[in-house]
């Protein structure tokens, strides 16, 4: 991971951990998946930053990079696909911390401009193990950085 992606992932992880959601472990992984067949360690919130980044040149000396990431609540019992009021509440708390309070949450991420909440998945849900429930919140962080010289 590049330094910017690491900083974004750590900033989000810290913000979600600060919520102290009951019984929830917050982890960073490349994709929001957990090992198939075991529900140990659940519920989890998985922070995943996509490695491919949209980049465009902005001026002669700067570039704009857009990092997509997901904050996924993973709970056991995927086969039932039950609607879960607790997960809904957690989603709103996470969104408040990550999106509404983005200026504070990403204050240590150099070049951070703003965050956009996406309406669709950052990772392919079909590729994730079916044993569990996945409830993703998807975002795009925009950074403006200097071009390498």
């Amino acid at each position, binding site marked *: 991971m590049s330094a910017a992606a690491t900083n974004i992932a750590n900033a989000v992880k810290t913000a979600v951990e600060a919520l102290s959601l009951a019984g929830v472990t917050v982890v960073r992984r490349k994709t929001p998946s957990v090992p198939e067949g075991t529900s140990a360690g659940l519920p989890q919130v998985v922070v995943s930053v996509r490695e491919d980044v949209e980049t465009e*040149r*902005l*001026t*002669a*000396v*700067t570039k704009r990079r857009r990092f997509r990431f997901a904050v996924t609540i993973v709970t056991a019992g995927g086969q039932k696909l039950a609607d879960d009021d607790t997960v809904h509440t957690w989603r709103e708390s996470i969104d408040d911390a990550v999106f509404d309070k983005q200026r504070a949450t990403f204050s240590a991420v150099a070049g951070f*401009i*703003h965050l*956009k909440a996406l309406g669709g998945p950052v990772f392919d849900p079909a590729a994730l193990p079916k044993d569990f429930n996945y409830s993703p919140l998807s975002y795009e962080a925009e950074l*403006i950085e200097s071009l390498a010289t």
Partner: protein
Amino acid sequence: MANWSGNGSSMLVGAVTLHCRLTRLRKNARLTENTHSGVSSSNYDKVVPDHSWSASVPWDDANLPDTDAGLVEGAKVTIVFAMGASGKSETLTNTTVESLEDVMDNAGDIIRTEVTGRGGALTRPVT
């Protein structure tokens, strides 16, 4: 023959480089109509050059267009417009800054300053 990327374009205002998203330099002539019996259609002749320019500047709190680069409405400045990756430039000497517009979009953009100016003597790029 070579075509060049527009990236690398900037404005040198006096001694200060201002990095821009977009710069435009319009080479105009002020024309007067001189249609007369010796011509078979309408006829316009040049009076004076009447160039104009504009730039979209991402607002940099360490290099402000007005305070640091001297682009203040009404000021006369000399601007060298770097032409992307070509290595060439064109210059407007003694051009007047006409307007600056600070654009502050809450919904999804960085702060930008849109600058316009008119007049000045043009030095063209050469092959």
